[in-house]
């Protein structure tokens, strides 16, 4: 557990030394969410209807941006090899890296989402649903994305390949995340969607780090 905390702290410290990388992804989210009203037109009725989908797709793409760097630096300077050799189980260390990635990419997105929701005139309960689903959904995105990042580590054209691998696997999270907000808007309530999202998160959190560690070992061979 000490190793877990130490690794999370290390990744956070590294990220805070280069704040621009974290902020770029956040601003990407803001810009994407702003582009849609400009492309579709300022009619509030339509915007309110498409807001859940747009905000979720925006969050999805933003969290994809930073995935390529998740293991790349550690892979290049050999830290990753040391992690694989250390007596601490690799899945635990991978879990720490994923958790740090979520703290830096997913959590800020979830906290920023209410501001973006104002652009689309979402009501209070819908905003609440949006934040909750993003809080549950973004760690799921980080875990799935980490598997993709490990598989494409050091591969030529890895960044584009990564999005091709990961985006189809993101779809269930998108369906239930955006679905929850839509359900809230249409008056059914978001509890059921949120429960399924949580179930998927539990499943991913259990298997994800292990699969990711296996993929890293393949890359390190």
């Amino acid at each position, binding site marked *: 557990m000490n190793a877990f905390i130490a690794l999370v702290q290390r990744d956070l410290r590294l990220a805070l030394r280069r704040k621009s990388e974290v902020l770029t992804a956040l601003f990407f989210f803001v810009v994407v969410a702003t582009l849609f009203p400009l492309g579709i037109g300022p009619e509030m009725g339509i915007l309110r209807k498409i807001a859940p989908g747009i905000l979720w797709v925006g969050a999805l793409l933003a969290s994809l941006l930073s995935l390529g760097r998740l293991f790349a630096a550690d892979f290049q300077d050999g830290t990753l090899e040391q992690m694989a050799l250390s007596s601490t189980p690799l899945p635990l260390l991978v879990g720490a890296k994923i958790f740090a990635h979520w703290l830096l990419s997913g959590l800020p997105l979830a906290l920023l989402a209410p501001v973006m929701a104002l652009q689309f005139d979402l009501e209070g309960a819908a905003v609440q649903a949006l934040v909750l689903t993003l809080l549950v959904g973004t760690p799921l995105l980080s875990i799935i994305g980490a*598997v993709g990042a490990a*598989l*494409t580590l050091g*591969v*030529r*054209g*890895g960044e584009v*390949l990564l999005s*091709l*691998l990961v*985006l*189809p*696997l993101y*779809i*269930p999270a998108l369906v239930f995340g955006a679905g929850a907000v839509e359900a809230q808007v249409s008056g059914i309530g978001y509890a059921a969607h949120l429960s399924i999202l949580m179930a998927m998160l539990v499943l991913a959190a259990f298997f994800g780090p292990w*699969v990711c560690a*296996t*993929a890293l070992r*393949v*890359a390190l*061979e």
Partner: protein
Amino acid sequence: MTLKLFHWAAPQTFYHLAGKLWKPFAVLAAALAAVGLYMGFFVAPTDFQQGEGYRIIFVHVPASWMSMVIYLAMAFWAFLGFTFNTRLSGMMTQALAPTGALFTFLSLWTGALWGKPMWGTWWVWDARLTSELILFFLYMGYIALTSAIEDPRRADKAGGLLALVGAVNVPIIYFSVTWWNTLHQGASVSVTKGSSMAQTMLWAMLLMALAFWAYTIAMALYRVRSIILERERHTRWAQELAA
């Protein structure tokens, strides 16, 4: 029995086995498809609701079945590859992928052709159609990943892992009809209830399904021969074969 299996798991022996097997399966596929298509287009009665347009199901339904079965087969070979660390497993996974992608595309394409006259639209965002499309993306992702990695052993393992992760999606496709109640009609063939189709229609469809099975096996064996030769080009037996 186990010893025998591992004997055939060596690429060199399997190369010759595949060479013997792929032709009979190809012939079988052609014969079954000829009979199946004849029954489907000339023997099976016209559907009283859908007219002649329904006949596309003789290609569409077997193609959809195969698209899912092949992905499961890939996951199976990937699993074998991880448990026994056999080189042949990865090659089989790679040999199956293009055929799977082909059938998925065929299923989507014929589905669109059927949807236009029946539903009045080429495409609906129904759960089943969408998950078939996702399956197509998964195949493309697998092919892209394995072709981007230069080291064949790493390509096998990374691809295998991706196939296993993606296999979680295949059950979702199959049960999505039950989970989301939407436009796509429920399954016409069911194990528990029997079939709601005319006998000849069912037979034609099953023949086509068998034809696609045989085609898949023949193609996978044919393709795995090329992969084996390419990978083993530095060995003496492959060079002797080429000489």
